[in-house]
């Protein structure tokens, strides 16, 4: 393999793929959400554009990109414009650190299915996903309107509160894997023969609940509660900027699902990696396993949304401070204890 291919073409290809992959997943996710919610409600949902309506989100995005971009006169123009970019950018950037599958060997060259492997990848992803809060609060504040402001305030309180249990549960995983490197965490799960989700179910459940809350999804979708705050922090946005917020939310969901899969469900590993009888499952490429697992969690997002009513603000905060954080702390102590004693 020539150095040109290895050093220029492949990295550029990877960068393009890392931008395209979340976008494709966003399109799939929007379609999945609309179809699945519709099917659960006895409807059919979008099924006209493309096969079974798969292209409906694309059509919507194209429509949004051609719509007039409205900014009200008293808005803070700089922050107003920068916030959708900030939200989108932080979600996309985090995907650089997400390993999508096992490295592929082509002759002497090893193609890794991630852009960057960092010993603190987990921390970087958590940090980046927290940056999107700035986008939300800037957008809500800069709109100079009351509903977005209230949505932004809710969002900040909610995301900051739910960061704590997220951090505590992620810590347990790092503890057991003795690493904060996402690739390393998957490798450790392969070596230990079990997925951490089965090893530490409490961690997984607390992480999942916090993750749903952090992505502002039902039943924790208070910042954009349609029946209360019209559209929450992006009420004043239209056209392409609105599309950015919208897509960033879904990209964030894909990111969180990826994290859950990597941390608790073995990333690209097939089910029961250590059981000999199921060795034939290794024939399926790791990337496919990874996708299947992600789709399951995305489906779970939609399923929950179709079922549950929305929390009220006080109950939301009560849930995290009185239940999730103590639970996460106890869980952390137990895991630490077991880890030390063994």
């Amino acid at each position, binding site marked *: 393999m020539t150095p040109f291919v290895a050093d220029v073409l492949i990295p550029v290809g990877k960068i393009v793929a890392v931008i395209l992959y979340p976008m494709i997943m966003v399109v799939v996710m929007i379609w999945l959400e609309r179809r*699945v919610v519709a*099917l*659960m*409600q*006895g*409807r*059919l949902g979008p099924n006209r554009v493309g096969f079974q309506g798969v292209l409906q989100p694309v059509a919507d995005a194209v429509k949004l990109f051609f719509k007039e971009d409205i900014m009200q006169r008293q808005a803070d123009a700089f922050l107003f414009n920068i916030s959708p970019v900030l939200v989108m950018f932080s979600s996309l950037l985090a995907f650089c650190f997400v390993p999508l599958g096992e490295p592929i060997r082509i002759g002497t060259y090893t193609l890794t299915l991630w852009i960057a492997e960092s010993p603190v990848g987990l921390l970087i992803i958590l940090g980046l996903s927290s940056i999107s809060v700035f986008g939300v609060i800037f957008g809500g504040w800069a709109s100079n309107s009351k509903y977005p402001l209230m949505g932004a305030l809710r969002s900040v309180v909610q995301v900051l509160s739910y960061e704590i249990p997220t951090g505590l549960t992620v810590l347990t995983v790092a503890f057991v894997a003795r690493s904060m490197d996402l690739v390393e965490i998957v490798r450790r799960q392969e070596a230990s023969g079990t997925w951490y989700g089965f090893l530490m179910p409490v961690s997984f459940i607390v992480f999942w609940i916090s993750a749903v809350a952090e992505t502002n999804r039902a039943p924790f979708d208070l910042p954009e509660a349609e029946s209360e705050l019209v559209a929450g922090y992006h009420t004043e946005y239209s056209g392409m900027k609105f599309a950015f917020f919208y897509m960033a939310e879904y990209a964030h969901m894909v990111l969180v699902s990826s994290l859950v899969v990597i941390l608790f469900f073995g990333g690209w590993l097939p089910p029961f990696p250590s059981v000999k009888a199921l060795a034939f499952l290794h024939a399926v490429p790791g990337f496919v396993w990874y996708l299947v697992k992600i789709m399951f969690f995305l489906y779970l997002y939609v*399923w*929950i949304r*179709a*079922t*549950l009513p929305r929390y009220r603000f006080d109950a939301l905060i009560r849930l995290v401070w009185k239940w999730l954080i103590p639970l996460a702390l106890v869980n952390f102590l137990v895991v630490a204890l077991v880890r030390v004693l063994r």
Partner: protein
Amino acid sequence: MSRIGRFLKSFFLVDMLRGLAVTLRLYFSRKVTVQYPEQVQEPAERFRGIVRLYRDDKGEPLCIACKACQRACGTNCFDIEGKKEEGAKVMRPTKFDWKLDRCTFCGFCVEVCPTNAIRFSREFRLTGTDKDGLLFHLPDMYLAGEDLQSYLCAGCRRPR
């Protein structure tokens, strides 16, 4: 139920799981959507669609321009003038203007008509692209089906 049982039920999210089971079951249930342009739900027998005039079996118009419908109408949809031709037995309308945009589909005109000339059709597609299509004159009152649709639609009406 004991307090422990209640706590356990609450702790293991039994209420939410029940809800999730319901939505999952309905996910596989029969869907009620009617794919409109391809499948059309037939309106009921008595459906109050657009009103139109009818002719008898021999093709003679039934309307005798008695203006009963005009008097019964609560929203002044009708503007009717009639004339008795030399040697004819009954009056015939010379002008029969009917305004679709005013009609509330209450059915009073149909109920009072002595000759059963004005009746509800089962035509429910009432959209047009301009206001002219909402004003019906005497010949337009006999239109039905696709002819009526092309009358309502400005693009189709223009060539005539």
